[in-house]
């Protein structure tokens, strides 16, 4: 059963509800171990909802389908968001989400490609975009119209390999390649340690057709993704300005940490508040 094919008009309200569900799943996951990369996950939730429930063409029951669109999560530590999306998409069981980060779980805190639905090992930053280019070249050789979406982050732009890849994508005219650059303003040592601005101008200078949007505005996301469908000889970049912890005020307003750890009672409080406000419960 193909998802999102052909792409229909976006039901923004329905996608926003999906994003809320993904956030709720992530809270359940983080509570399990008391910790996780929840700030990043909550920030990218809207983008993943738009991808998996609107833009990406895939078959959850045939993950190896050659003509599927690929989604490569280059920031492997955002796995918490990917697991939520894959569960909601029917690729992994929702009940498995509570195992996030536990011993012997397939739902690692940083992705390995042994988990169904994972297209790339993303833990070593700077790997995703180049591999997305290779996939796009391979698809073009096979005359497939499938597209490749690569998520990467503002901190990851500090890896030189990101720019090696950026150069080659425009050289090879990979117009079926879409880079989704999550600019959430944080990295391992705290707020972005090296000024990467102006981000959009950098991608434009490397030959990418670039849009810059509020990455937590569903309408803006689906519009930007629709704009990126054009096959005009240029790779597409969408710069997503996101808020770490988006949708959970206590995490939004906390210290902007790379890794978030609180005790179970505090998680329970956050989850109760979320359910009350969003009308969700699990």
């Amino acid at each position, binding site marked *: 059963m193909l998802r999102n094919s052909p792409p229909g008009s976006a039901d923004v309200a329905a996608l926003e509800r999906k994003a809320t569900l993904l956030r709720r799943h992530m809270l359940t996951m983080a509570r399990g171990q008391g910790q996780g990369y929840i700030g990043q996950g909550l920030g990218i939730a809207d983008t993943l909802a738009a991808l998996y429930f609107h833009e990406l063409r895939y078959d959850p029951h045939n993950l190896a389908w*050659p003509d599927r669109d690929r989604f490569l999560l280059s920031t492997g530590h955002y796995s918490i968001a990917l697991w939520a999306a894959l569960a909601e998409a029917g690729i992994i069981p929702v009940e498995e989400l509570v195992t996030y980060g536990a011993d012997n779980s397939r739902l690692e805190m940083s992705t*390995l*490609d042994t988990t169904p639905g994972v*297209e*790339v*090992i993303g*833990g*070593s930053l*700077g*790997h995703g*975009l*180049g*591999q*997305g*280019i*290779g*996939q*796009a*070249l*391979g*698809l073009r*050789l*096979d005359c497939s119209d499938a597209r490749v979406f690569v998520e990467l982050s503002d901190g990851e732009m500090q890896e*030189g*390999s990101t720019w*090696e*890849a950026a*150069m*080659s994508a425009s*050289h*090879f005219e990979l117009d079926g390649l879409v880079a989704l650059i999550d600019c959430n303003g944080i990295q391992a040592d705290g707020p972005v340690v090296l000024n990467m601005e102006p981000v959009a101008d950098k991608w434009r200078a490397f030959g990418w057709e670039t849009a810059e949007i509020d990455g937590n505005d569903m309408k803006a996301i689906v519009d930007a993704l629709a704009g990126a469908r054009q096959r005009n000889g240029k790779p597409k970049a969408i710069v997503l300005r996101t808020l770490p912890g988006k949708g959970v005020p206590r995490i939004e307003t906390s210290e902007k940490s790379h890794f978030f750890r609180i005790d179970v009672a505090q998680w329970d409080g956050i989850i109760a508040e979320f359910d009350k406000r969003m009308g969700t419960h699990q």
Partner: protein
Amino acid sequence: MSSGVQAGRTLAMGQDEAVGGGRQSVEAPFGRALARLGQSRNDIVGLTADLGKYTDILPFRDAFPDRFFNVGMAEQNLVAVAAGLARAGKVPFATTYGVFATRRAYDFVAIALAHSNLNVKIVAGLPGLTTGYGGTHQAIEDLALMRMIPGLTVIDPCDATEIEAATAAIAEHQGPVYMRLLRGSVPVVLEPGYTFEIGKARRLREGSDVGIISTGFMTERALDAAEALQKQGISTGVLHVPAIKPFDAGAVAEFASGVRRIVTAENHVMVGGLASLVVESLFEAGIAKKVTRIGLPDRYIECGAVPTLQAKYGLTTEAVIATISGLESA
């Protein structure tokens, strides 16, 4: 004999540097073999990082321009793009120099390729002392580095025949491979009928006094040295070990059992490569024999003409003969 082996001058980039004397040679055996394979295998694609001309892959590019990608001077991206192509069902052959494939792209080889067992073949020019450009270009430690990566096959072929056979064999093999390249005019050393099999060592010459265990172009020197040593009354066998990984420890132990003295010979530093593997496997097999190592010292090598450097660092046939006859007369 190629003009590229004249002593006393540093060769220009791209001049052939691997050729020994007195043997027939084949031009660009790797690129020609790959172009031949490309005719029946449309899943094979070629990549390089601005060293296509210098890694002999141009015959493939000329035959299949649509299946060839030059990513520019960007070795991390070379490996990443090859990984993506492999995930899309292709069999990429990616060329650069050994120094760059290892030192610059190591994390990509380890994680993007080997961790996922992707079907990418890295073909690496200028192994060891095949260039006079000094430490920046001489891959003197690549075998050791690549051997440490789980699941990566590591090949150091000895001549044109083996390069052609190994190119076909690694194309058939499912999984990542690092193969050292001898480029340009490459001598034919192995006898007709030689068969290459990944992970198998081959006994090329029998002997009872000294057993030389060699890899890469040192096998040519070992065979020539063995012939000369025979005339001195020293019976010398040669075991050629083209696969550093998987390593044929059984063949090494069996060969070592039949000789008095063991000498290893490699175009590589003496630590971490063939010599280390031989010693490890003999120790594990409980074979207590003295092993003498011929290889490069634990230091960077200066610039200079290749023959000068090979002589200075003991990699020539004459140096192998001198080392072994010295040992035997001691």
